[in-house]
């Protein structure tokens, strides 16, 4: 079995298994903890509505804070949207999704994908620079933050290298295999560290949204 076969076979299977099981384990480890009924008299019963509202509304910082977090929010948006475009709108990726899900959707032109990938990469680099230079971020960051950053950047870099076929002497097949392995690493890591925010964000915003709605307070 050569590297590409390994990447397309067992490596992928293990990565997907870790992705799914890890996600389930982490969510279950939280939501099945005891949840005491709240006996205080609610001001409002719109808790579901409150949860949903906060899940959406917290995507944009409140006006009171906007100027103070503008830069990090712009970078954050740029790289998340860019990443989504690269992951979900590139023809070869869509074919892979089809092999797993059984259906496909239209792709964006390759030129658009390349631009998105480069912009995403730059915004991720800018976020790293910010993490390394801001005293607050330097203090609160740990291994998870830097590792998750690297694991997110790796597929972008290896993907761009494969597309441009600049492998410093490596064959295209090897480049592709390395790209696939870097994606599987992202999948395998996603549930365990901070990247878990991709699913935790709904739980956590929803929790606060429901709690505050019960008190009739704004979130």
């Amino acid at each position: 079995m050569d590297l590409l076969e390994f990447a397309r076979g067992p490596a992928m299977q293990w990565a997907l298994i870790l992705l799914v099981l890890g996600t389930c384990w982490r969510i279950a480890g939280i939501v099945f903890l005891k949840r005491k009924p709240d006996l205080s008299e609610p001001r409002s019963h719109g808790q579901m509505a409150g949860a949903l509202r906060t899940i959406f509304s917290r995507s944009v910082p409140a006006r009171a804070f906007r100027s103070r977090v503008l830069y990090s929010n712009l970078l954050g948006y740029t790289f998340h949207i860019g990443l989504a475009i690269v992951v979900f709108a590139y023809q070869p990726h869509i074919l892979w999704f089809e092999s797993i899900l059984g259906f496909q959707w239209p792709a964006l032109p390759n030129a658009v994908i390349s631009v998105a990938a480069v912009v995403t990469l730059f915004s991720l680099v800018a976020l790293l620079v910010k993490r390394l230079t801001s005293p607050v971020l330097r203090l609160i960051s740990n291994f998870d933050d830097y590792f998750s950053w690297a694991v997110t950047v790796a597929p972008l870099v290896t993907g761009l290298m494969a597309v441009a076929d600049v492998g410093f002497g490596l064959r295209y097949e090897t480049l592709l295999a390395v790209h696939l392995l870097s994606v599987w690493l992202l999948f395998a890591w996603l549930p365990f560290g901070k990247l878990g925010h991709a699913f935790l964000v709904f739980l956590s915003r929803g929790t606060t949204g429901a709690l505050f709605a019960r008190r009739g307070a704004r979130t």
Partner: protein
Amino acid sequence: MSTADLDQKHPLDLESARIGVRKPEQRYDVQGDTPDEARVHAAMVNFVKDFGATAATYMESCIHCGQCAEACHFYVQTEDPRYTPIWKLEPFKQAYKREAGPFSLVYRLLGLKKKVTTAELKEWQELIYDSCTMCGRCTMICPMGIDIATLVGQARHGMFQAGIVPHELWSVAERAQREGSPLGATPSVFEERVEWMGDEHEVEMFIDKDKADVVLTMSSIEIQKYPESMAAIAKVMNHLGIDWTFRTDGYEATNFGLLSGNTAWQRDMSRKIVDAAKQCGAHTVILPECGHAYGALRWQAANLLGEKLPFRVLHVSEFLAEQVNSGRLKLRKVDKSATFHDPCQVSRRGGATQAPRDVLKALGVELREMENAGDYNWCCGGGGGVITIHRADPLRYKTFEIKMAQIDKTGAEVLLTSCSNCRQNFDDSQAHFHWDKTMHSLLELVADNLVEH
């Protein structure tokens, strides 16, 4: 430190602008003589004790984006990264990941998270007590919606059981548990002062009635420093013809059990009011102009006591708003401009943001709101017990500069709030800065402007 000589060691100071324990000559910020190892254990056990799904969700969700710092007055005014809200929980976050989270086994086996030490907890005392008012402004900015203020409250549970509480906060809490009031407003002192105010303001006072529709409570800050507010609320109640009473077995609404982190004391303090109200068959308990008293009785008491409360709990501003909105309470117009400082626990964290504004409208004042007033209001910096801690004074004054700038900018003639703890922080800071503005009570303004039938 034994409690017998508490009065000698922690004499009260009821004269200065900020009342409380006199500045200690020697600080005792660690209580008892528990060995270090046991302290950490007690802290962590009590931190995770009431760890439900909610707290676990928050602990798992932080993405270390650092945005919470930008909402916290302690960080914004000092730019000291240690005051980043989520950093204040760092030892507890570590302990959670190591001992309780879904991957705790992995963390322990691989030694990925170090065991928290007593030295670290002592270092964090300043972050968990001196530099957090539990105002919840950070909760509003966090992109993951993490309610950091609640987590700080839980961390205090751990700190109290570990015996690592700031000197003054521990001693006022202990006094409150022993005497029924943190500031010497014992039942007999309370009764005396109620009668004194009744005579002084010629208003009929009711105390210890067997039956009453409404039980009124007070905060010790009001009893000792702003006693006029007792006359003010009595005047309003009598004017409305409501059947009310004070109760010497349940009058103290401040809850230093909550602020210091002792849940058992918090429960005892709430129970007094609940029992008193039950005994006289009250359908409503009115909380005074005090922020955390509202959080304690309105949102937490039922859960601590394990029963639904058989009466309504209203903050006095909510009560006044109800009376004004239903047309029962008519007020004279006050022809002035005013600005209103939102007490965090009543507005942002209590959901009663609109109530004082309805009252102000009925008073006909020209309301000049501060920037971000209401749910995004800047905390005054004195809540959460911070104002009792002398070593936190420089930090507290620093954060107060935000408030002064905001208020000066409105150009309003009258400053109003609905929290006596905020008010005493304003008084103390006014003296410190030789500022020309004085904070007033919304309730007292209402009482001064009743329209006689």
